[in-house]
């Protein structure tokens, strides 16, 4: 399953990178509405006559791009705060941890909807920024928890003390001796987090408050295809299938990486 995950994600990334360039424009009407699957339109056209394959490929760019950006932001904030949550002086350590706990009390998607609602966007580029910001704000607390727990276990390990006994500053010993150990577990957890973020982005777009048309997103494509579900169910299948398989794949990849980074499991996944 690990290899299925890697292969499928590789295909998605490849299609996202070169797909929109080799097919039709994802934004414009290029054929008759509801054209069937064929050599001209690989997955047919939607209700406005736009190429579904091109829209899925462009949507992959949006979904993966937003997902990776959000996870990167969450990692930067989470690793910084998580490390400060162990090494920081009390007046900064305690507020960080309490604030992180408080963030867990909010339901993620509701908080994201609230943030988007407050941030009134005027154009499509801003709508993407608003989605990124709202998802990033809900994504970092879990990273803080993970990093804090991991850093705390390494803080008193003898080799960390030994490096300090040889004159290394706290910053140096944390960046050279503590954080490198977190690489494996952070990578593994990031894959699962990424799946959650992509799903959340699709949910926002499905509700119509995420990425704004005409920019395609998997979520908004599902929402539109839903209207013609009775007459053209196949159009609904494609975005749903791609979204589900992407999320499955990321979870498989996360599990596999976790097994690899844990020596006790001997690389079984």
């Amino acid at each position: 399953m690990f290899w299925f995950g890697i292969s499928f994600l590789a295909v998605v990334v490849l299609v996202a990178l070169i797909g929109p360039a080799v097919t039709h424009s994802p934004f414009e009407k290029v054929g008759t509405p509801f054209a069937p699957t064929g050599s001209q339109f690989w997955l047919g056209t939607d209700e406005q006559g736009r190429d579904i394959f091109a829209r899925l490929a462009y949507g992959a760019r949006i979904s993966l791009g937003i997902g990776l950006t959000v996870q990167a932001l969450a990692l930067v904030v989470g690793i910084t705060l998580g490390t400060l949550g162990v090494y920081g002086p009390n007046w900064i350590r305690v507020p960080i941890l309490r604030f992180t706990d408080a963030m867990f009390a909010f339901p993620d998607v509701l908080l994201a909807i609230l943030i988007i609602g407050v941030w009134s966007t005027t154009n499509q580029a801003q709508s993407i920024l608003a989605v990124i910001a709202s998802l990033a704000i809900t994504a970092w607390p879990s990273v803080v928890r993970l990093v804090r727990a991991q850093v705390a276990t390494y803080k008193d390990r003898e080799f960390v003390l030994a490096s300090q006994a040889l004159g290394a500053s706290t910053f140096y010993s944390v960046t050279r001796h503590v954080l490198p150990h977190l690489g494996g577990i952070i990578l593994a957890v990031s894959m699962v987090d990424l799946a959650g973020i992509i799903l959340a982005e699709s949910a926002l777009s499905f509700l119509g408050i995420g990425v704004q048309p005409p920019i395609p997103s998997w979520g908004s494509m599902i929402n539109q295809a839903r209207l013609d579900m009775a007459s053209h169910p196949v159009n609904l299948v494609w975005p749903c299938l791609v979204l589900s398989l992407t999320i499955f794949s990321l979870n498989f990849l996360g599990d596999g990486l976790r097994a690899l980074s844990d020596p006790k499991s001997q690389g079984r996944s």
Partner: protein
Amino acid sequence: MPVISVRGLKVKFGSTQILRGVDFDLEAGQTLGVVGESGCGKSMTGLTLMGMVPHPGHVEGSIRLEGRELLGLPEREWRNLRGDQIAMVMQDPFSSLNPVMRVGDQIAEVYQVHSAMSYRQAHAKAVEMIGHVGIPDPERSARKFPHEMSGGQRQRIVIGCAFAGRPKALIADEPTTALDVTIQAQILELLGQLQAECKTAVMLISHDIGVIGEVAHRMAVFYAGKIVETGPTERVLRSPQHPYTRALLAALPSPEKDTLESIPGQPPRFEELESGCSFAPRCPFRFEKCQVEPELMVAEPEHSKACWLDSQN
């Protein structure tokens, strides 16, 4: 002038005193052996000399490095001293090296931290040091990870890290305890060789009196956060003055003995210390005077003990 001079050193955690007034000197090129049971304050003394007492600990007294008072220095100045003037070898070579870092880089780190050396220069010095601590094929060994080395080799790397800065004082906290007996002798020999080269003053913490007797010029016996006997190693071992030292020596195994002697009772818990001599509850020779705590007093030239027995006072 001694390299390190410790006077009236006390360490408190809240109301619990871990060190209760310790005095000793470390002389250049000489080794002070420190013995005592677990929890008697040996390791805490080492950490205090490194300025690394864990958080709520409070340190009093005086630690002078070549006449310069170290207690009260800001952390930044301590950091410059550590690894450069005072270094430490920890007990367990299996955990005191970073498992995901090549050993050459770990030694190079010391050079990079203390002198503005490029990575290339520092790495070249590290390879040189790896050869110097007696590991074959230093070029290739520098690229190894700790798990690819044996315990003895790892401890050689740890010692290489400690001597990379040619320190004036070295604290070796049980450097051979985790190793095979056959390797122990080699590691002690390496320590002695580097010590002679750098004229380093060494404080060798061990609960193995055999090790201390072999390499230490002077020794100090710790009990419940105090030194109860100190003097030249030979004299302390030949004519121990404190009942605790005698009991420790009697507890050593030897081929002539059928059974091992033990010291009845437990060392006192620090929070339960009563007034008077802290060893008195376990001492077979205790008498009325032991209700007053004895300070170190001269038993014979250079040899002191903290015990009222056979004393003139």
